[in-house]
């Protein structure tokens, strides 16, 4: 279980997260939604260790993540797929995926290979292009690659930042479906940040609505979806 309490992250004089508190239940999909600039990405970056909070606490399975380096947080079973440039264009598809499991090679040699194969099963298009440079992939394929890179480290918590950004609805559907299946079959906990609230609430169990760095609503996804006033006020539809 991921517990975030009174988290404050600021950049100079700009307060991006202003006392955010919520819980993400194990093996469930929790989505963080809100308008642009609400602090959603900053939230994920703070959890994964790329940003340091000014105050507050983050615990995963009882262990505090505050002050840990990003590369150590990964080794604690948390994988973050940042928005935008989450793959390294100059490396091949295979190398990008390998990259995610480098730190496991010594202890789990056989499993590393098994994990890689599983990724190719999940996303067959990547298998076709395994020797190609990541920069030559389409947007959807690159997103699949980024997710593979994260999943190959066998995380218990997956932080997904705007996977639908710039992708065609069909591709988005495919990706979200894969994540959903993964969560239900392997018990992966997912924290999903999305601009497209409708899609996100459609697949999530729980929803957290952020506005200007504060939590405005923290409810089961179905309830949020049904609340027309909230949607109109914060999500614009």
């Amino acid at each position, binding site marked *: 279980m991921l517990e975030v309490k009174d988290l404050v992250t600021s950049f100079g004089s700009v307060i991006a997260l202003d006392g955010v508190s919520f819980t993400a239940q194990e093996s469930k999909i929790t989505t963080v939604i809100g308008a642009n600039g609400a602090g959603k990405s900053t939230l994920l970056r703070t959890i994964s260790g790329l940003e340091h909070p000014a105050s507050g606490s983050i615990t995963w399975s009882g262990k505090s993540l505050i002050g840990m380096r990003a*590369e150590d947080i990964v080794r604690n079973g948390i994988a973050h797929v940042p928005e935008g440039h989450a793959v390294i264009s100059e490396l091949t598809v295979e190398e990008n995926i390998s990259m995610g499991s480098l730190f496991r090679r010594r202890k789990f040699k056989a499993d590393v290979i098994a994990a890689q194969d599983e990724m190719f099963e999940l996303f067959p298009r990547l298998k076709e292009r395994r020797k190609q440079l990541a920069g030559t992939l389409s947007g959807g394929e690159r997103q699949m690659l980024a997710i593979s890179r994260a999943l190959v480290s066998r995380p218990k918590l997956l932080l997904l930042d705007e996977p639908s950004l710039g992708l065609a609805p069909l591709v988005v559907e495919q990706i979200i479906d894969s994540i959903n299946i993964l969560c239900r079959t392997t018990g992966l906990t997912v924290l999903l940040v999305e601009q497209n609230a409708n899609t996100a609430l459609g697949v999530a169990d729980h929803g957290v609505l952020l506005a200007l760095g504060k939590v405005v609503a923290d409810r089961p996804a179905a309830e949020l979806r049904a609340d027309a006033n909230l949607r109109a006020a914060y999500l614009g539809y």
Partner: protein
Amino acid sequence: MDTFLAALFSGTSRGAIYALVALGLVIVWRGAGILNYAQMGQAMFSTYIASTMITNGNSYWLAFVVAILVGAVMGALLDILVMRPLSNKKKTELLSSESMRAAIPVIASLGILGVLQALAGIIWAAEERGFPAPYAQEGFTVAGNVMPFTSFDVFVITVVLSTLALTTLFFKKTGVGLAMRATALNSEVARLSGIRTNFTRSLSWAFSGAASSLAGLLITPTSNLSPNTLDLVLIIGFTAAVVGGLDSPAGAVIGGFLVGMVISFVSFYDTPEDVFLAILAVLILVLIIRPRGILGAKDARRV
């Protein structure tokens, strides 16, 4: 025809060394985004250590290995003691400017160069020393003619080419190599993949240090050893790296050989004194005509 052959061979042999220097520069540039002006200072320092060992009776090969190890350790120490604290600095007013952020590591590396040269002066005095070569420096005799190619030249080319081959294999095939490449290309994604980027960066520095020490060991026999001899080599290495493309290891190699040829031909057909001006001309030409270098990527960082 004789002059041409001599120039060709000399160019190949020298070019190999310059390729090594350029490679060292490119590794740190890609791995840490810094142009390490202290590189040849490190090489000079480890060559002095080797020289002292040899003078004290140790075998050349022992000194050789020690010098390379010293180079690697020095490189890593430089990263840990100077470069890492530099990049960890909180954003002060001075550092909010793009160009100052780029300039400061350069200034730091110049400071390191100064320290190394001064230390070398203190420890060993600025006296010029000879440095032995493990193989004969006379030309082969073929059919009664003395070729302008010595067994030492063969040694140099063999060492450099095998180093380059091993380096390429290392980067392409090993996990550590992949980690180093990933850290160099996108350190955020690398961190999110669990790669210890600080450690990996220090490895790049160690690698570069070893490569430059090797270059120093190979080039010193044909000149003399003093705290300043390798400054010229740094300039040539820099030019070679620029010619080949500062972000391309393969480019560094090509650049090294090209520049080696230019220098060699200028030396043989014109006068050695013009070598410097030739290098300057090549540098300016490349920067004007094709600033990214032969193999450099199109939108590579220019700052």
